[in-house]
């Protein structure tokens, strides 16, 4: 453009800088795109997922009582690391239809030996118990969050919602919505292998 308005180009250095600008912009964008592609691989960049402020951080401190009659211990922040392998925290409720859809996948993970910890979110204990008796209980530990306080600390988007916490107790992945078969095979299983 400069030649149209100033054909005699008074300052060659400025002109040089101007001619260099496209390269600099393209290079910067390229670095950004590369970071995005890397992030796609590690899960830190996901254009589809609902964001979580907790990715890469330790979960908030909490302690939840066990579900009466479910014969499983309660859940607290201390239980989330020191397992020697990645663990899953699954927020569910008996009143939530997608939770029924995702339940077989949780059962499958549990049978495969993955520690799945459950949090019954704003759900009457007897209803949660009925839900687990009907569909099976995949949870190695189970906390009851009747008032939904702990869910607020976690930044819960809705139920069901699932978090993957690695060996060192850092949240690596968050999935808002049901874990379907596709999610299991395409997202979760590769992540479990990576953080194993």
């Amino acid at each position, binding site marked *: 453009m400069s030649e*149209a308005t100033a054909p005699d180009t008074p300052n060659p250095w400025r002109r040089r800088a101007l*001619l260099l600008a496209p390269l600099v912009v393209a290079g910067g964008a*390229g670095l950004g795109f590369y970071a995005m592609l890397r992030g796609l691989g590690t899960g830190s960049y996901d254009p589809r997922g609902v964001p979580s402020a907790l990715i890469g951080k330790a979960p908030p401190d909490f302690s939840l009582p066990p579900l009466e009659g479910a014969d499983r211990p309660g859940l607290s922040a201390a239980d989330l690391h020191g397992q020697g392998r990645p663990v899953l925290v699954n927020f569910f409720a008996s009143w939530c239809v997608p939770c029924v859809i995702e339940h077989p996948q949780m059962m499958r993970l549990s049978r495969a030996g993955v520690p799945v910890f459950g949090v019954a979110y704003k759900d009457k204990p007897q209803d949660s118990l009925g839900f687990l008796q009907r569909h099976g209980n995949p949870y190695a530990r189970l906390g009851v969050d009747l008032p939904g306080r702990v869910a607020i600390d976690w930044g819960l988007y809705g139920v069901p919602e699932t978090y993957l916490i690695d060996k060192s107790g850092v949240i690596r992945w968050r999935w808002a919505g049901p874990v379907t078969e596709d999610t299991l095979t395409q997202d979760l299983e590769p992540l479990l292998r990576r953080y194993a």
Partner: protein
Amino acid sequence: MIPELGHFALALALALSLAQAVFGLWGAQRAEPRLMAATAPLAIGTLIATGTAFACLMWSFAVNDTTVSAVVQNSHSAKPMLYKLTGTWGNHEGSMVLWVLILALCGGAVAGFGRKLPSTLQARVLAVLALVAVGFLAFILGTSDPFLRVWPPPMDGQGLNPILQDPGLAFHPPLLYLGYVGFSVTFAFAIAALIEGRVDAAWGRWVRPWALAAWSFLTLGIALGSWWAYYELGWGGYWFWDPVENASLLPWLAGCALLHSAIVVEKREALKTWTVFLALLAFGLSLLGTFLVRSGVLNSVHAFANDPARGVFILFLLMVYVGGGFALFAWRAAAMAPTGVFAPLSREGALVLNNLLLCSIAAVVLVGTLYPMFADLILKQKISVGPPFFNSATLPLVVPLIGAMALGPVLPWKRARLWPALQRLWWAALGALAALLLCLALEGQQIGPALGFAAAAWLILGAVADIADRIALFSRPRAALARARGLPRAAWGGAIAHAGLGVMMLGLAGMGLATDRLALLQPGQSASLAGYDYRLDSVQDVAGPNFSARRATVTVTRNGRDVVVLTPERRSFPVGRMTTTEAAIHTTWLSDLYVVLGDERDGGAVLRIHHNPLAPWIWFGAAIMALGGGISLSDRRIRVSAPAAKLARGEVTA
């Protein structure tokens, strides 16, 4: 056997392209005529090899060869033959082969029709085209092999996405690719010019037809995609500012700027650096679109199944071509001295304004598209940039652009005076004002559509005024017809393309007045919208060739008289486990009556009824714009001095 032949042909094309790139660059540098002379036959060889590979892939789809992975994933024996064939490019692997085939076609065209070019320029252009081909062939062979076999073969394929089984969409990608890849030729010319350190009028004459052809195809491709979204997706909209739509709009804007600034290079030898930059930019934005769609870095309804390894490879190619091009630009562009000088108010000045505005619009669209991704990456914030941003940010740029569009062509070169130009356009301005006031009077406080109608009148009447002035229709009407025949086709093409945008503005303004309603109707009940009554007669089951559907029968009446019977459908495809909505559309050219069948409950059905005034003119206008490009391409000046236009026109009819 056939798939292996195709695979071998791809590898052969890679080897030939590599030789073509090395011979061309080395030969031109050393002024070695024998090496340079080898590039043209090599380009023809590459064309034959990629053509063979594409034919092999198409054959695999046609016979539904289930040992080929791409066929298994994207085809099915129950599909109609047309969609089996178009399915060849309806997937990632096949579409890349088509991409390379079109690139080879362009190379073959430069080789075949470019004999009048200086031999070093031709060799360098062919070498750069071959370098692009090498990258993409390596990409196909390395990460997305279309001929990958599966064993044991499954019983049948997994079907094509039923939304893609549509004639509009079947031909949308090839047209887009013709546009994208066409810009690779202008890119190659720009690189060759940077290596030689010289841009002159002859260069501009060569670049312009390619920019025109690429731009015309891109116009058609984008319009076809938008039309498809309108009638197939059943949302009643035509443009959603989806990132992938934006990715195709960006090279269109840059290409539009390029074909205008190439005129200045050709006629006045000015704006050289800028034109070279635009040529690099247009191709860079085409590649950026490819990267965004296929790497999975953005969230869109259009995105292909993604694989980070592919994303890294495309990013690498993007950086090599665009980064390399811009590095060469930074190093060499300063050498290109402009010779033509002009006053701000002149034809050149108007074209500079056109370029500034088009590039500003492109910048707005680019930022709006990429900002959410970079905000996510750097600031860890999820934001979405939607139609309100794009509409309000581009409007202040589009208004002066349209204002200048009618004015520019009537300005003389070098130095102009405003008053005589305005005198030629006074009745176009009067028409625009009348359209504005008429719309405000009839439709009330609808400022957007009113502006749209004014713009449409201004552009169409302005184009007529331009032609009338050139053939002296009013001052010496008797010889006007003879002068019209003698007028260069480029002048006709430009006026027609500008009027085409006016026709499109008519449609856009009409769509600004669109109304819709949602009605739950029992059979026999009716709803009314914009003076039409829609009566739901029945909802029945029907069976199609590879789907079953629920079909509603809706009788449309106006003042008690029957207008049309519409049958919107909801189809479910058992193979793909998908449902699609088939909107029923009746067009009167003045408006579209558009009905979509929604959920059924309590014995009734939910109907979404749209009344879209002037909707068809949007795509009709785009077709006129592309036609204008085609007419401009057939200009004798281009044909005589740059025979490549012949091929580009041949592609229009193909």
